[in-house]
């Protein structure tokens, strides 16, 4: 029965991984940028929420409502100011720029907040749970899973139903042709980065409530997101959800076998996918 429990916990964790990985997948799908600062951005959101909750005493949901749009704006500006110019200099330049950003963010956080491990206290909600037959389900993991699912569905609808979403997909399929028919690629890229940053901030806040974090947590988070994207299949939104769930379940079952196996189990599944199905579980369409 504990195995079924591990399975359920892994599934719920996987939803959060998927939400977190969406931004990475979206930025790669649309701009061919691998954002190496992805994990650090989530940690920045966590620390920002920590400072806001500690400094102003605002309730957590207000902080979330403030932080997520703020990050969307930051994302748009980052793309237009920092990334757009390096896009023309080839893929290596964007990789180096985002890696530099990652190191800068980590060390600024380290200087401001010290290397101490923190958690974001969300009151009794974080620990309350209900029983579903023999399985205990925490309210927090369930709510994060549902929220992640809702956000992913929302992005899916945005990409398939709205004009801007169609332009995003068109730019991701063929940049030149899309701009020929009137898509302003810089604006479209800015929007994609804004969505990516907003989902990263939301995921970062959820990570902060669920588990502890410190300024050096970012890189390991980036690796989770990356693994979810590759396991699911590059450039597929639902593949990313599947990849996140596979990763979450693997880690959860791995930790059931031996707590030291948690991370290794996830990495090994990733390597297995890389070796035997490099196109990912749900290979297919872009974005």
């Amino acid at each position: 029965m504990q195995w079924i429990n591990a399975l359920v916990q892994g599934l719920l964790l996987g939803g959060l991984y998927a939400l977190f990985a969406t931004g990475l997948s979206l930025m790669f799908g649309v701009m061919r940028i691998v954002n190496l600062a992805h994990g650090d951005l989530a940690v920045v959101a966590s620390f920002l929420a920590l400072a806001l909750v500690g400094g102003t005493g605002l309730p957590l949901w207000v902080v979330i409502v403030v932080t997520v749009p703020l990050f969307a704006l930051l994302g748009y500006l980052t793309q237009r100011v920092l990334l757009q110019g390096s896009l023309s200099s080839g893929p290596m330049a964007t990789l180096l720029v985002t890696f530099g950003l990652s190191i800068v963010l980590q060390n600024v956080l380290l200087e401001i907040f010290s290397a101490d491990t923190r958690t974001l206290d969300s009151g009794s909600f974080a620990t309350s749970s209900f029983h579903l037959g023999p399985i205990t389900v925490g309210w927090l993991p369930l709510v994060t899973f549902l929220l992640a699912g809702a956000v992913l569905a929302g992005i899916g609808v945005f990409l398939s139903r709205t004009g801007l979403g169609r332009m995003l997909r068109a730019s991701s399929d063929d940049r030149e042709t899309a701009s020929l028919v009137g898509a302003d690629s810089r604006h479209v890229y800015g929007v994609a980065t804004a969505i990516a940053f907003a989902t990263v901030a939301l995921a970062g806040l959820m990570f902060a409530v669920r588990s502890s974090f410190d300024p050096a947590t970012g890189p390991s988070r980036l690796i989770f997101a990356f693994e979810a994207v590759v396991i699911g299949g590059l450039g597929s939104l639902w593949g990313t959800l599947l990849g996140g769930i596979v990763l979450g379940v693997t880690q959860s079952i791995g930790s059931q076998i031996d707590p030291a196996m948690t991370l290794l189990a996830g990495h090994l599944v990733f390597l297995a996918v890389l070796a035997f199905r490099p196109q990912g579980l749900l290979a297919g369409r872009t974005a």
Partner: protein
Amino acid sequence: MTLSHLLSERAAAAVDVRRAARTSKVSGGVLLALVVLLAALPYVVFSDVTDTLVNFFVLVALAGMWNLLAGFGGLVSVGQQAFIGIGAYSVIALADLGVQPYLAVPLAALTCVVFAVPTSWLAFRLRGDYFAVGTWVIAEVYRLLVVRIDALGGASGKGLSGLSGLDPALRGALTYWVALTLTLATVGGCYLLLRGRVGLSLMAVRDEETAASAAGIDVTRAKRIVYLVSAAGCGAAGGVITVSSLSVNPDAIFNVQWSAYMIFIVVIGGIGFIEGPLIGAVVFFALQQLLADFGSWYLVILGVVGIAAARWLPGGLWGLVRDRTGLSLFPVGYHVRTGDVR
């Protein structure tokens, strides 16, 4: 004699193709003098200077290996710490088996090649940008596997045996010479490799992969050679780090910080030039020593400078120097001058 023979002979007579400009002969002499000076240094200065220089040499070697990988092979890796770690642990393990630690350093390079072969099978399945994060994951896997081996000290690391009998002054000097040899071997190795056939195919692949492949170059083979050489160099550097610090800690040796150092040194110094890592390492080292009292702010500054260099100065500092002066210490291309056409 056919017409085409005649034409090609006349064409060959019309141009003067040579590897070295006159400046590179002069600068070659200066470099040689510098190497002799550096080799004699343990007799001249106190050991704290040579100990500091050991760290510098390790950085030069690592940056040179990353430059070979990314600047010439087009393989941007964020996972070379895998081989630094494997090299470091190889020296620990070989010393436990009774091998003299200094002799274990070149063996550590060999161990890394052995590990790099299967690693490249996996990593090369990821293209372009995804290669970077993929190598990083593989480095994490190696770290997680190493900490599970109790004989290697698990998560808390292990001390190096076999050097405790040596006099500290002699040990310091020997470590210094090993580190100097490492740097010379990596710089010289890169130079020789890039002057040869492999270098030519690499530069063709880097500039236009499809065309190079169409011209009959085995792209994957060229990249794999570079990957293996880079793994060997990083492994030897990991070995030098171990004989210098006399212990190894898995979290420190497999830290992605090493990749950050390598990348920033190369990007600031000039990616795709053998001289780049040398200049970049000097800048990096100076920043690190100057800002030693300000915690990790040097990394923040380095990150900002790195971003700026990647964004606005793709040739780095050496690119600037070369554009202004045409100087080339390690010419890997050819100078072509048109003579008087008959």
